[in-house]
């Protein structure tokens, strides 16, 4: 087992990793910027090193500072958390050169997955479904008709040189294609001096579905089911749940098998998440892979009983998945997470400052991951996530009722938080039915007015 780990992060995820280390008997080193001197991750780590001034670029993203802190504290490994340096292949490489274990996949894999087109090709090769595209420009309307006939409608025409919606048309039937093709092409010519168009399958109501995977360093991969993350605002997830109501046991089993094969081929290691868009008809298309632990990992922990961060540490210690995971992992109940952000619930403006009262909900089926406390300060330099509220119930109905009561018992004073926003979302009929997509928040905010 690893002996001592440096956590190259802050906030709730730093505390999460410290907790996992403590439970495994691993010593911990926190790093912190001057703005985080009184943070709980500093308080609860065995050692703590100040690595720079408040700005992330000068501290948490400062590779030499983080590596030096690891060297002077003589750690075996670095856990990068999420965000910050977690998907920085160069950082992983510096760790390797410095003889410090980076808790995550090898830099080559991170790099591969970081390049969208390469990642798509790797997935496609392994028979993971990717969003169909025309492989370059289509020659003319004739060609476009042929391609669309193959993948099925709706499709979307996009200007090769384009952007901002110009030269873009959604095509729902073969009949309307020729006219829309010509309109898009001439619009593109006018706007960019280039009328060339390419095509993609168009998804009317995309759901964001992602699969959690774990891979050891001996070639074994396990898939720990999916999470539903369609409740997003400006690509920021607000609410996540597991399992997804839309993923059938068949889709789940088929995709799991495919992903297992694919990630074994790629040589993936440690925890990772594969993101998909899901169509109304249940078709599902790869978008990208996140080569790190995810903010929303607790919902998977709740329904599987597997501690993902401890699994990461044990994988990095060289253990095999069959030592780490129980034989037969079943989905048990339903879990939902709300990301509690320090921001105005209507205007979404960030709200840094001193927290004057902080009472977290507890009781049956409620988990809170936070590094905040009464009299603590939310500094203005970092992201606005101050707590994750996770509930687990025997089914989605119980989980929703539990979340509503927990939100009502979550008291934060001194700053604005997204708690009232979450309360409104949980009252929303569309949310409660569970039949939503990534455009839910647009509709919801319009409804709320």
């Amino acid at each position, binding site marked *: 087992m690893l002996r001592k780990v440096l956590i190259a992060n802050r906030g709730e995820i730093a505390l999460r990793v410290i907790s996992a280390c403590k439970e495994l008997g691993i010593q911990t080193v926190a790093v912190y910027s001057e703005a985080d*001197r*009184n943070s709980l991750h*500093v308080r609860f780590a065995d050692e703590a*090193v*100040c*690595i720079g001034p408040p700005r992330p670029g000068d501290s948490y993203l400062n590779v030499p500072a983080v590596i030096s802190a690891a060297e*002077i504290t003589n750690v075996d490994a670095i856990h990068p958390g999420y965000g910050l340096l977690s998907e920085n292949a160069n950082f992983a490489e*510096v760790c390797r050169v410095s003889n410090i274990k980076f808790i995550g996949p090898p830099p080559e894999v991170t790099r591969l997955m970081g390049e969208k087109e390469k990642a798509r090709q790797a997935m496609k090769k392994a028979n993971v479904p990717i969003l169909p595209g025309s492989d370059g420009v289509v020659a003319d309307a004739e060609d476009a008709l042929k391609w669309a006939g193959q993948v099925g409608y709706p499709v979307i025409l996009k200007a090769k040189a384009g952007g901002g919606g110009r030269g873009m048309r959604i095509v729902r039937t073969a009949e309307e294609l020729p006219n829309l093709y010509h309109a898009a092409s001439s619009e593109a010519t006018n706007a960019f001096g280039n009328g060339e168009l390419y095509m993609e399958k168009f998804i009317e109501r995309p759901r964001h579905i992602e699969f959690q995977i774990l891979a050891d360093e001996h070639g074994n991969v396990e898939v720990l089911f999916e999470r539903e993350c369609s409740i997003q605002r400006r690509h920021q997830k607000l609410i996540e749940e597991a399992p997804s109501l839309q993923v059938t046991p068949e889709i789940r089993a088929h995709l799991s098998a495919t992903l297992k094969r694919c990630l074994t081929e790629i040589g993936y290691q440690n925890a990772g998440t594969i993101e998909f868009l899901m169509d109304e008809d249940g078709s599902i298309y790869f978008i990208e892979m996140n080569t790190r632990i995810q903010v929303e990992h607790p919902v998977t922990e709740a329904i599987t009983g597997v501690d993902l961060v401890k699994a990461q540490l044990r994988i990095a210690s060289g253990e095999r998945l069959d030592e780490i995971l129980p034989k037969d992992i079943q989905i048990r109940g339903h879990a939902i997470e709300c990301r509690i952000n320090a921001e105005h619930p209507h205007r979404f403006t960030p709200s840094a400052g001193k927290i004057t009262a902080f009472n977290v909900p507890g009781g049956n089926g409620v988990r809170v991951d936070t590094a905040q406390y009464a009299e603590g300060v939310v500094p203005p330099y970092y992201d606005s996530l101050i707590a994750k509220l996770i509930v687990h119930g025997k089914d989605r109905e119980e989980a929703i009722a539990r979340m509503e009561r927990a939100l009502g018992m979550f008291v934060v004073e001194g700053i604005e938080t997204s708690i009232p926003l979450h309360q409104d979302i949980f009252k929303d009929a569309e949310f409660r039915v569970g039949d939503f997509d990534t455009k839910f928040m647009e509709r919801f905010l319009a409804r709320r007015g």
Partner: protein
Amino acid sequence: MKPDGIDELKELIAFLRENEIAEFDLDRGDLKVRLKFASAVVQAAPAVSSGMDMVALARLLSAGGGAAAAVVPVAAQVPAIGASAGDPPAAAEEVLHILKSPIVGTFYESPSPGSSAFVSTGDRIDKGQVVCIVEAMKLMNEIEADMSGEIVKRLVTNGQAVEYGQPLFAIRVA
């Protein structure tokens, strides 16, 4: 209690002690006092007040139109010397400049093992003069003085790990 109320503060503390107060918080305008008598804390408690630097506190309290308050937080890492949170009230007080480490790493007093130290206590130094090395990621980073003056004290030992902002030298500014 007037802005320069060190005497009154002392008087207050004596009075609290007389009255067997265990803990005391006062927050008035720009003044905050919080203390806990050591004897009252039965045990184990985080000794907020033990080692409370009265001089530093006084300086903080006397910081004129004091914007911020004097607080004594859990992990208060106020360096003993030269907190310099305000201007000298009366004269008498000597304020030392603290040269802090701009990076995380290992402190070395000399360019190589065995060679003599860049600077010693009592040395006069000029701004820009190399005073030590902080090794980070196998790189030897020469640290230069940011003020001219006299080295009064070295605050770390040779080979010691230092974090960002850690005080390295106290310098009497000339």
